[in-house]
């Protein structure tokens, strides 16, 4: 490919792809797990950029919103609180390297074999026609999800429900030593429950006053 033939989008793509590759590489090579998680965030962000280039703006933004904005935040939350002994984690790295390298190379070779066939060549896969001006990726996706893909979509919601049930089942326990309070109960507290107003004469005899002073 000649350098002159590149258009602006191509430059953006190559820049993003380079960042993405770098970030992805650093995810697995960074020594500090927090750094690795942050590089993963960068990778997500850059991947979203590439999707934007492909005019899939809903997916791109959803990737940022869901993965970067929520999932990775919680991930970082956990990783930051972990006290990971890196040396122990890296123990046996060299022992496992040969077999891991073998599997990795094999997978790469298989992928090359598949991607190298004519079915994935640029001639075989025709670039999709550009969309008309009023085309909304988001609306189209919504229409597809609620018509053609209704069943898997609803099933996904059931899977999420089960995930919630599972998480709560496995973690929620009523601890006796917990000091949490029920705000509804707190709000319901009336003045009369907490203080007792005692009616007393506002004026006291002077000799009594001197007595209390001595007592104090």
């Amino acid at each position, binding site marked *: 490919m000649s350098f002159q033939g590149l258009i602006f989008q191509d430059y953006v793509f190559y820049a993003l792809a380079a960042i993405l590759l770098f970030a992805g590489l650093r995810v697995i090579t960074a020594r500090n797990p927090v750094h690795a998680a942050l590089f993963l965030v960068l990778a997500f962000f850059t991947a979203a950029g590439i999707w934007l280039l492909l005019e899939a703006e809903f997916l791109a933004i959803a990737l940022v919103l869901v993965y970067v904005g929520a999932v990775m935040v*919680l991930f970082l939350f956990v990783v930051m609180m972990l006290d990971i002994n890196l040396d122990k984690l890296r123990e046996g790295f060299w022992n496992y390297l040969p077999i891991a390298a073998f599997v990795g190379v094999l997978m790469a070779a298989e992928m090359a074999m598949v991607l190298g066939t004519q079915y994935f060549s640029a001639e075989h896969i025709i670039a999709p026609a550009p969309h008309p001006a009023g085309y*909304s990726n988001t609306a189209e996706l919504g229409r597809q999800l609620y018509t053609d893909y209704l069943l898997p979509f609803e099933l996904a919601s059931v899977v999420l429900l089960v995930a919630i049930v599972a998480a709560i089942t496995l973690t929620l326990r009523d601890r006796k030593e917990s000091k949490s309070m029920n705000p509804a109960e707190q709000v319901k507290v009336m003045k009369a429950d907490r203080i007792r107003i005692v009616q007393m004469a506002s004026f006291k005899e002077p000799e009594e006053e001197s007595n209390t002073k001595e007592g104090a």
Partner: protein
Amino acid sequence: METLANLFGSYWPAIEITGWTLIKIIAIVIPLMLCVAYMTLAERKVIGYMQVRIGPNRVGYFGLLQPIADALKLLFKEIILPTASNKYLFFLGPILTIAPAFAAWAVVPFDLNLILADIDAGLLYILAMTSVAVYGVIIAGWASNSKYAFLGALRSAAQIVSYEIAMGFALVGVLMCANSLNLGKIVLAQSGGIFQWYWLPLFPLFIVYFISAVAETNRAPFDVAEGESEIVAGFHVEYSGMSFAVFFLAEYANMILVSTLAALMFLGGWLSPVSNIPDGFLWLLAKVGFLLFFFLWFRATFPRYRYDQIMRLGWKVFIPITLLWIVVVGGFMQTRFAYLFH
């Protein structure tokens, strides 16, 4: 221009677009910074009056030059880098806080056709940008290598993630009514006077959105991430000088942003409340100012929430309310009362 165009040949269109966009960005950012500066003054004045004080009144007329003086002071202060901190991330924190706060403005329409990038999924874009802002706080808290900063970062992360859900659901109601994710179209869908604005049919969502917005910006009474009295200053305890000022800037820019969004989505944006008065940018400004006043008012009025109560409010109160109201809206849309929600 002509000679420049010839010089760059086929690249000229791209350069031209980039140049114009940069100019537009500057045209948005500079007034925004000024707004932020005077927002701090307004805050001190308003809270001052609420507490029967005068507030800053020494620098310039009524203290009008006070923000400039503050900025100069912060600029000249030394930036201290804690020895045990993570150098790169320590400076990445403030940058990551301020960048999304500004980037989100790209899709905000100030008037009919007065917008930097009129994209279809504008609302989603803003949600995504505001959700990214939490990284600044987390990274700052972690990179400082300090207990208080870290506690603040954790609190902030949990709080922002929790309230984002309620906020997102509140916006789902809006986009159901407006049938669009484009902010301009959402505003136009509300045209026809104050009773056509979405604050009325979506009143519960409006309230939830606004309170969540206060929580999202870590403002009082949801400012447990800073919590001066318990964790000193939370995530930015180790920052000084300009790096601290950037956090400050981002907080106020975010306040203005969420107020603008509330104005656009629930109060009809640049539309005038009565149909025979012309619409315009000034209306948006007035509405945003009105909403911003609430932020100051809250800060002067409410004591800080306890952390578990914040979580309870977000998860057990706001999310159910928004879900319920979405069902109500969706249900009504199937009946002959659908016009109420359009």
